[in-house]
Structure formats: structure tokens, C-alpha cells
């Protein structure tokens, strides 16, 4: 196998990783605050359309931020439904995913004059080479050259996430809202605002990931381009046991698995498999990882449970 393919496969895997990890990190905030969020896919979709519009109007940096902001705003529907009105989290998440598709279509017609896509080649950030790593021999340097600057940012996001969750008053209270809201409230912690914040952060992350997909990877908005990656991000979150570093490993695993059928279909061993099986690899990896090898899944104790609050 030419090693250049391995480098290209890693580069592609890192693109998928970036989408998955950013989205999963957002989901982590939501779920650690006690709100299950299966609407990540829908929040990403809102990020793709708003990010594409933003980059055309104001450039790629603004586009990414507008994507994040729109995800945040849209996620407030989920927060309102689950925190304030105690709607079942799964039902509300499904609604988010359904409405996002229609909303994106409506906005696409408004922004681009066509219902399902923008023009191609929308403005994007200049790609970068990672010093030293891009000089790796045997074609592996390709994995670390010509990379979107958002990719390393995704890795780095683990640091503020760990810090906020473990070292700040906000993070600790957020976690208490997700583990035992009754106990938190008896200690004077107001649960509802924390849960709004958790959901809002997940919306911002997912919207940012969607904007990254549209602006940096595809360089256009296209209906359906998220391809269910929001759900794979959810799987990475579960596989990573709601812990930032483990979620990173899970996202890397799923990201690389996505790349295998696309870049390594003629690699040794893999090429012996029938085509259909090679295409199954990402899904098989996901199912095995979730069903078999996670060990004890340890979700936040109060996640998915409505909290009525003492003042109700």
C-alpha cells in the first residue's frame, strides 16, 4: 500500500474527528447539566446554513461564529421545552432535528434563492501546515499539511472544557445539576439557569461544527450534508463516558473509521473484504464500541430526568 494513502486517510479522519469532537464536547455540557440532547444533528444543520451565509457576507471567521451563535439561539428551543416545560428530552430532541431541516430550507431559499444549496466555493480560512509533523517521512506528512486551522483548535478545546468542568464554580455547579439537582438546590444552587447554560453551550459547539463542515470542508451549504454525524457524535460522547479526553479518543476512533472505506479500501487486509463490508466499517465500529467494549457506561445520574424544582 502506498503510504501516501495512510497520510491522506489520517487527514480525512481528522476532518471527521473535528466535526464529531466539537459536537460531542457540546453534548457533554448539555448532558452533564442533566439535559439529554439528541438534537445535536439539528443544531449542526442550523450551523451549516447560518455559517455559509455568514462567511459569504462577513468572511470565514464571522461565519464560524455566526454558526455557533445560531446553534446557541436554536438550542434555546430545546432548553425551553425540557427545562421550563418538562417535555421529554428525546421528544424535544427529535423535534429539533425535524424543524432544523425545514428551517434550513426556508433560510436557503431566502439567502441563496435556491432551496437546497448555496453556490460552491464560499470563503474559507487559509489552510495551515503543522510544523515538524508535516515533514514526517513516508507520506505521513500529508496528514498534517494543508489542514484547516479549526482542526487543531478542536483538540485544544479539551483544555478549557476540563478546566471549566473541574476547576470553576460554574462547572462544578453544572455537574451537580446533572447528578443530583435536589441536593444542589438545597445548597442554594439554581438548577434551571445552569441547564439553560449547558444546552446553550451544546448548541454553540454543534453550530460551530456545522459551520466548520459547510465553510471549511465542503465550501458550500448543501441540504443533507451533515449525513447523521450528529448522531455519531452522540455515540462518541457515550463511548467516552462523558469525559473530555475519553470523548476525544472516541471521536478519533470514529473519525478514522469514517475515513477507512473512503481512502483505504485498497489497503492490505481491507481490500480482501467485499465492498459492502468495507462501507460498513464506520457503523460496525460504532456498534461494537458502544455495545461491547465500553465497560460500565456512567451517564450523569439525573440526565434525562425533569426537575420540577422546589418553587414549582
Amino acid at each position, binding site marked *: 500500500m502506498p503510504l501516501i494513502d495512510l497520510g491522506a486517510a489520517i487527514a480525512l479522519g481528522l476532518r471527521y474527528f473535528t466535526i464529531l469532537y466539537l459536537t460531542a464536547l457540546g453534548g457533554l455540557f448539555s448532558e452533564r447539566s442533566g439535559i439529554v440532547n439528541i438534537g445535536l444533528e439539528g443544531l449542526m444543520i442550523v450551523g451549516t446554513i447560518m455559517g455559509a451565509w455568514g462567511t459569504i457576507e462577513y468572511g470565514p471567521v464571522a461565519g464560524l461564529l455566526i454558526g455557533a451563535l445560531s446553534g446557541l439561539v436554536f438550542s434555546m428551543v430545546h432548553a425551553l421545552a425540557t427545562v421550563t*416545560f418538562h417535555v421529554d428530552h428525546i421528544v424535544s430532541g427529535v423535534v429539533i432535528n425535524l424543524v432544523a431541516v425545514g428551517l434550513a430550507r426556508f433560510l436557503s431559499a431566502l439567502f441563496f434563492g*435556491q432551496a437546497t444549496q448555496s453556490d*460552491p466555493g464560499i470563503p474559507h480560512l487559509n489552510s495551515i501546515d503543522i510544523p515538524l509533523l508535516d515533514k514526517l517521512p513516508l507520506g505521513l506528512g500529508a496528514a498534517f499539511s494543508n489542514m484547516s486551522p479549526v482542526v487543531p483548535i478542536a483538540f485544544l478545546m479539551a483544555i478549557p472544557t476540563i478546566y471549566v468542568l473541574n476547576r470553576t464554580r460554574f462547572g462544578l455547579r453544572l455537574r451537580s445539576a446533572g447528578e443530583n439537582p435536589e441536593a444542589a438546590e438545597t445548597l442554594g444552587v439554581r438548577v434551571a439557569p445552569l441547564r439553560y447554560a449547558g444546552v446553550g453551550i451544546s448548541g454553540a459547539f454543534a453550530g460551530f461544527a456545522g459551520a466548520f463542515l459547510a465553510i471549511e470542508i465542503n465550501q458550500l451549504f*448543501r441540504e443533507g450534508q451533515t449525513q447523521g454525524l450528529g448522531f455519531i457524535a452522540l455515540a462518541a460522547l457515550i463511548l467516552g463516558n462523558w469525559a473530555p479526553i475519553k470523548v476525544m479518543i472516541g471521536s478519533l476512533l470514529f473519525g478514522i473509521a469514517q475515513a477507512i472505506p473512503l481512502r483505504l479500501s485498497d489497503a492490505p487486509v481491507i481490500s480482501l473484504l467485499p465492498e459492502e463490508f468495507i462501507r460498513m466499517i464506520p457503523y460496525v465500529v460504532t456498534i461494537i464500541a458502544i455495545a461491547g467494549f465500553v465497560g460500565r457506561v456512567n451517564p450523569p445520574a439525573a440526565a434525562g430526568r425533569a426537575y420540577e424544582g422546589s418553587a414549582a
Partner: protein
Amino acid sequence: MRSGKWLVVVLAAGLLASACGGGSPGESPGGGGSGGGIRVGLAYDVGGVGDKSFNDAANRGLQQAIDEGIVDEDDTEFIEANASGSDRDDNVIALADEGFDLVVAVGFAFSEGIDKIASDYPDVNFAVVDGFAKEAPNVSNLVFKEEEGSFLVGAAAAMKSEAGTVGFLGGQQGTGLIEKFEAGYTAGVQEVDPNIEVLVEYIGDSTAAFVDPTKGEALSSKMYDDGADIIYHAAGGSGAGLFKAAVEKDGLAIGVDSDQSLTASSEQRKLILTSMLKRVDTAVFEAIQQVAEDSFRKGFQTFGLAEDGVDYAVNKYNDNPQLLSQEIQDELDALKQDIIDGKIKVPTEPAA
């Protein structure tokens, strides 16, 4: 439970917004005049007018009929399907109820609905683009010989290729439709030079394969890396990934369905050799003309090279020696004539 009511309001507002995305009935903006001719209704599929693809092509066919005075603009109407396409049948029924002489359904997905509806409206003629509706006295399926157009762009690729390797990027595998494009393309390449290798990649096995530019780009990059210098796609929206890969790898690309040089970005169109044109406008125009002349052809009407139903694209961007030179165009036109004359038979299934 007061709060519960509010939630319903919020959700209803959201769903309304999503429904608006689908589109609503509209009449063509009016010209004057009163024709005593036929009345034509169009049921567009998901995407509606402005999709720069199927629906717009059908609309051009209608406009041509209006321009040539076959049908009066006031006697036309269209309805766009909603986002999920769940109201396709209702739209066709609405048009049939209004007593149009011809109802054109733009897309294969209308076929099964037309099967049920057509017998209730014996005085209305139904035409289904890409259709597979059952035989009925008032139903015509307008289908295309995609393999013939693909043959020509395959020949163009073979004439242009310097690497001796070209590629094909397919969308959904397993239905036989995209395989027709592959078969024609490969046959066209081999007609010109049997020694050229054709790399083939399919994106997936579901319709999601047509809206995945990420995978489209990844597979195109792989084929360029593996030595292909020209790639033809039949992958719908995923083809955007091919054009992006072409820019990054400095390869040539071939578009599909419509003249994609016209909708590509400026750096992409320098690399688009040509596009395989599927003339939905021709088919729609023909159907309208047939009804006007009372010669509506039921069953299947096939639009190949002979009927101007498929073709290769020449435009102001590729009509030059760097891309589609005059010599190549002359050779392609000779091949086109051979196919029309029956001297070349184009296969519809890839060789095993």
C-alpha cells in the same frame, strides 16, 4: 398546565416555519393575451423552482412552449412539493381537479402516485419525468438514455487524458440507474482507447449518497491520487466534492444533468471539461407540444441523442483548446452520429 399551552404555540410556530420551506402554490407571473389553446400544470418535486437542476430544466421547457406560442402563460400553473415530498400526490390531484389538459410531474418519485390517480381523470394527460408509471391511455413516462450522453463524455475524457487513467464517481449503487451512466462512460472511454483504465467509486447504497460532498471529495481525491487525471460524476449534490477535489489536485472534472460549468465557482469552471446534459426541458416541451397537437404518446417516450434528450455541454468556458478543443468536438459529433445511426450500440449495464 398553562405552560404546556405555550409550548404547543412555540412548536406550532416552528413547524410552520419548516412548512414554509416547502413552498406554496403559485401562478406563473402573468403575460397578457387570451389563448384558446391547452392548459398545462406542472407539479415540481422537492427543491422547486430555483434548484438549478431538474425543476428549473422542466420550467425552461414550459417557458419554451410559452415563447413559441404553444401554450398561453395564463393557462399554466405550478405547485412545488414540500420539503419531505409528502404532498406530491395531493399536488397532482389538485392540478387534475382544475381540469388541466396536461399535468407534468417532474421526478420519478411521482410514478406510483400517478398509477393510482390517472384512472380517475381520463380527460387529463399525465407526463412523468424519469417516470416508471404503469401503462395507461393517458400516462407518458419521459425517460432518458443517460448511457448515450455518458458515452460521449467518456470519449471526451479518453481523448483528453494524458495519464492513461480516468475516473467515475457514482452516487447510489444498486438501483441500476447510476450504473447506466457508468456503463456508457466506460464504453465511451474504451471506444477511443481500450488501454485507458477507468477507476470506479460509488459513494453509498442509499439516496443519502447524492447529498454527501464530503465523501464525494474524499473518493475523488483518492482517484486523482491513484493516477486519474479526469473524473466524471453521476452523484448529484455530492458532485460538489469532485469539483473541490479537482481544484486541489489540479485535475479535470466532468459534470452531469445540467451544464455545471455555469453554476461552478470561477476556479472550478476552468477545470470542468464538459457536462453530460440531460435535457428535461426538451422532454417537457415535447410533451406539451404533443398534447397541443393531439398526438400525446402514452407509455414510455425515450429521449436519447437522436431526440436531443442527452448531449455534451459546450459553453463559453470550455469551448477552447485548453479544455474542449474543436478537434475533440468534431470527433464527438462524429461518434454522436454513429450512435444515432445505430453503428455504435451503447451498453446500459457495466461489464461484469
